[in-house]
């Protein structure tokens, strides 16, 4: 069904890259795992949010008196009376990018924007109360597409942003014009990349409980408990230490759950008003229309190469549909520009990105973070260039690819890179397919991705990751991390690293995460950062604890000091004489007594320094997808796939396979299913009947060849896995369509009618050509 080649020469590992179950597995397969969705507190009220029906309108007046008179309604909040107009945003370092009032005071900027919120004794009453709130609006002219919104006469969405340009980004290296002059072939194309809904199975959810001692406790579905602690403290006027965020189990994130959302904000404001717990769960429709989305982009890219396929120069101009607010969109704007250069060496590279405000649902980060859009355009154009010049597309890619030690000028240093072996693996896979049936074709796409971001736009005063390891007297271990497990398995990954580094069994490690009162601050689960950053912190903390323990062992052993002691799987021993030793538990008991009863505590942290502009490490991959297309209907079916993937040293074997397969399904959906049409600012398919995504019967085998490399910056040589693989698939599908029919798809997701129309146009053009 599926095959994996996991090449691992590092046999001495006892826990790392072995087949261990997810440590949260029992809770999840028995229905015991409790999510924010399941939280029920004594005296809890239910909140509902009234949303704007207009894409752009002034709020003249809000009258909630009728709603408040409804029996069972305890409070109504709105921007004019309750939130003091505080603007917020996650790019806290830059004031002008903190542009969102979760309950706006003066005007609404997209359909679905929260306007008021109600707390009532039941959800039903809260819902009824929404209908009784009178809001007087004055409609304003609206604009929905970035290329319209930048026009001089377009309506102004935010004051002081000329032509609605929210953020611009410029990336440049080398002598671009000179490099274009060296080129013997230049190609330019325009592309359109769609949005995509995160579609977490658990919709946005929060339960907030404010108590008379001035303390706020919030259960929420988040990718970063620390971010939400800090963001909520900021908007609520509380000290960070008085806000406790709990994220026990999280039903998916995918980049959509680390900004402040309406559920969290409104639940808190309502709870502060009534001093009772308030629960808000978004319906699926609310989650579609009011929880942000992958950033839609218009891409212009111009590429110059030599006739032998050597890449010279590239320049790209990108206009993104930012929607109504900034959020993480500023980061997506930078990353799409950077990864549009990947994984190739360019003598000259220039990128100009413009994030444009429109009166639509705000766009933000989503798994891949701007790179799936970048690769949709880049990897198709490169395929077309190879065809235009009659070159082998794999070999052309190979000769221009990054390699170990390559420096992306002014941006990044590539310490590990397995892309070259990826080309070999995919060539072998294609060969193994033999001659394909007539209605099938194969498309390829290469890419790379980061292992955590290094830029401190959140302005945190803390290290990016921290870990504390406490060793109990019975030899069990408490690991406290701020890393957030959102299903990707970070609790398990951290337990594996701790067990390996400290020398204990994985079942002896208890992981504590998702609670800001008890876990050290960590930026959380986004940008593929936790395995490298939290992983390093955990390794450091575990080694710290181990060193303290071994000092006691050494002191008692009477060994010559040139001999090494070690701990493996709970056995303390001299490396030269592994059979002689003692149990970890026995050592811990003596060491604890020797420290006057103090528990052994190890501390670790990670803060990046001098790691370029983007990330400390990069993963690489090449993907091949076999596609079957019905000539008449244009319907696409995925038949098979193979991804050669370099994530450094794999840590969590099962977790890695799951991440790669899961990323494929989401990436394929972006390529051909997850169409998100808007009409006059209104999303036309905000439900799971009309919003199509990959289901079990659509999913082909997702074969993986793991390329073994060692990343010096990562714990045990590990780097990113699972987010980067969202990047190649759309382009690989596009390339398969190209190889089948010779048509160039410039818009994703590709819908069947687009293929049918392109084939008609092609036939018409050929007929025209024959006539001449």
């Amino acid at each position, binding site marked *: 069904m599926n095959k994996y080649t996991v090449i691992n020469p590092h046999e001495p590992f006892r826990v790392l890259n072995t087949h261990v179950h997810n440590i949260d597995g029992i809770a999840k397969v028995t229905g015991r795992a409790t999510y924010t969705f399941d939280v029920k507190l004594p005296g809890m009220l239910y909140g509902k949010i009234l949303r704007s029906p207009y894409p752009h309108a002034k709020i003249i007046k809000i009258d909630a008196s009728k709603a408040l008179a409804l029996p069972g309604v305890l409070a109504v909040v709105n921007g004019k009376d309750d939130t003091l107009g505080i603007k917020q945003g996650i790019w806290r370092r830059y004031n002008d990018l903190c542009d969102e009032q979760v309950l706006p005071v003066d005007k609404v900027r997209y359909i679905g924007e929260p306007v008021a919120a109600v707390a009532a004794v039941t959800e039903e009453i809260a819902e009824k109360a929404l209908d009784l709130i009178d809001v007087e609006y004055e409609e304003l002219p609206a604009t929905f597409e970035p290329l319209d919104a930048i026009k001089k006469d377009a309506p102004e969405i935010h004051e002081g942003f000329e032509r609605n340009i929210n953020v611009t980004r410029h990336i440049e290296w080398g002598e671009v014009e000179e490099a274009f002059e060296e080129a013997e072939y230049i190609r330019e194309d325009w592309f359109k990349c769609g949005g995509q809904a995160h579609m977490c199975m658990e919709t946005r959810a929060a339960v907030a409980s404010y108590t008379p001692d001035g303390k706020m406790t919030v259960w929420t579905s988040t990718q970063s408990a620390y971010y939400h602690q800090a963001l909520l403290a900021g908007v609520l006027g509380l000290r960070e230490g008085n806000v406790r965020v709990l994220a026990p189990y999280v039903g*998916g994130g995918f980049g959509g759950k680390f900004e402040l959302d309406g559920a969290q904000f409104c639940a808190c404001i309502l709870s502060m008003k009534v001093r009772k717990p308030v629960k808000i769960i978004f319906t699926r429709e609310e989650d579609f229309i009011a929880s942000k989305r992958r950033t839609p982009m218009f891409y212009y890219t111009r590429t110059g190469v030599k006739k032998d396929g050597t890449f010279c120069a590239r320049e790209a101009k990108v206009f993104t549909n930012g929607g109504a607010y900034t959020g993480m969109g500023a980061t997506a704007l930078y990353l799409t520009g950077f990864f549009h250069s990947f994984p190739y060496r360019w003598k000259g590279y220039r990128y100009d990105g413009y994030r444009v405000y429109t009166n639509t649902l705000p766009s933000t980060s989503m798994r891949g973070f701007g790179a799936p859009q970048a690769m949709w355009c880049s990897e198709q154009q490169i395929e077309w260039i190879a065809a235009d010049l009659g070159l082998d597309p794999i070999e052309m890619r190979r000769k221009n690819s990054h390699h170990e030690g390559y420096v992306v000028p002014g941006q990044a240093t590539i310490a590990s890179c397995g892309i070259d072996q990826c080309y070999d693996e995919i060539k072998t896979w294609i060969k193994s397919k033999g001659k394909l049936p007539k209605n099938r074709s194969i498309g390829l796409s290469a890419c790379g991705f980061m292992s955590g971001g290094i830029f401190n736009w959140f302005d945190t005063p803390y290290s990016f990751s921290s870990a504390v390891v406490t060793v109990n007297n019975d030899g069990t271990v408490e690991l406290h991390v701020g890393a957030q497990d959102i299903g990707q398995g970070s609790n398990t990954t951290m337990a594996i690293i701790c067990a390996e580094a400290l020398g204990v069994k994985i079942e002896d490690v208890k992981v504590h995460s998702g609670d800001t009162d008890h876990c050290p601050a960590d930026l959380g689960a986004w940008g593929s950062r936790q395995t490298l950053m939290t992983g390093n912190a955990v390794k450091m903390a575990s080694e710290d604890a181990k060193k303290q323990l071994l000092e006691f062992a050494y002191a008692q052993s009477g060994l010559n000091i040139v001999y090494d002691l070690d701990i493996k799987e709970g056995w303390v021993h001299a490396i030269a004489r592994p059979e002689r030793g003692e149990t970890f538990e026995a050592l811990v008991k003596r060491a604890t007594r020797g420290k006057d009863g103090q528990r052994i505590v190890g501390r670790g942290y990670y803060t990046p320094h001098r790691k370029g502009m983007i990330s400390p490490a990069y993963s690489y991959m090449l993907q091949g997808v076999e596609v079957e297309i019905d000539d008449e209907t244009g319907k696409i079916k995925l038949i098979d796939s193979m991804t050669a993937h370099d994530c450094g040293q794999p840590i969590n074997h099962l977790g890695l396979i799951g991440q790669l397969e899961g990323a494929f399904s989401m990436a394929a959906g972006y390529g051909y299913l997850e169409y998100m049409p808007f009409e006059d600012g209104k999303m036309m398919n905000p439900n799971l009947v009309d919003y199509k995504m990959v289901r079990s019967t659509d999913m082909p085998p997702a074969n993986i060849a793991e390329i073994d490399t060692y990343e010096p910056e990562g714990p045990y040589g590990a780097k990113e896995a699972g987010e980067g693989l969202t990047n190649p698939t759309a382009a690989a599908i596009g390339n398969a369509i190209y190889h089948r029919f010779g048509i160039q798809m410039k818009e994703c997701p590709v819908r069947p009618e687009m293929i049918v129309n392109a084939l008609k146009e092609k036939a018409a053009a050929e007929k025209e050509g024959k006539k001449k």
Partner: protein
Amino acid sequence: MEKKLITLTVNDIEYELYINPKTLLVEAIRDHIGLTGTKRGCETVSCGACTVMIDDMAIKSCSVLAVQAEGRRIITAEGLEKNGVLAPIQKAFLDEGSYQCGFCTSGMLMSSEAFLRETKNPTEEQMKEAIEGNICRCTGYNSIVRAIAAVAKGKYAEVKS
């Protein structure tokens, strides 16, 4: 609407509930009985997160009223294990890593279990079809199909007896 007294048999336990007759089965299970393993991910009977077994058939519990399930044998994810011993499908999910965030898992387990009770020696296509009504945003489904296949092939047979 006048409330009604009904008895639901969930995981072999009888629960007496005094509920509004328009209460959905998923609401009765989650909000009235308090078994929160069964989830909800949509309002359109599309996602399968609320799937339970009624008389061995996989049913989306948001698609039936609680009163319609009276007298039937309802099994939820919490009812799969017996005396602390996991059912084969649960063990297979652990071994294959057939879940990530876990939010769809309860429903996915029930669709899989109902399918396995009904179908001997299933083909891969049948296994995929069995969970077509359940959305999983995390795993890409293949690990779930591998788990179903492992149980179908009798990998966990000794546990069954």
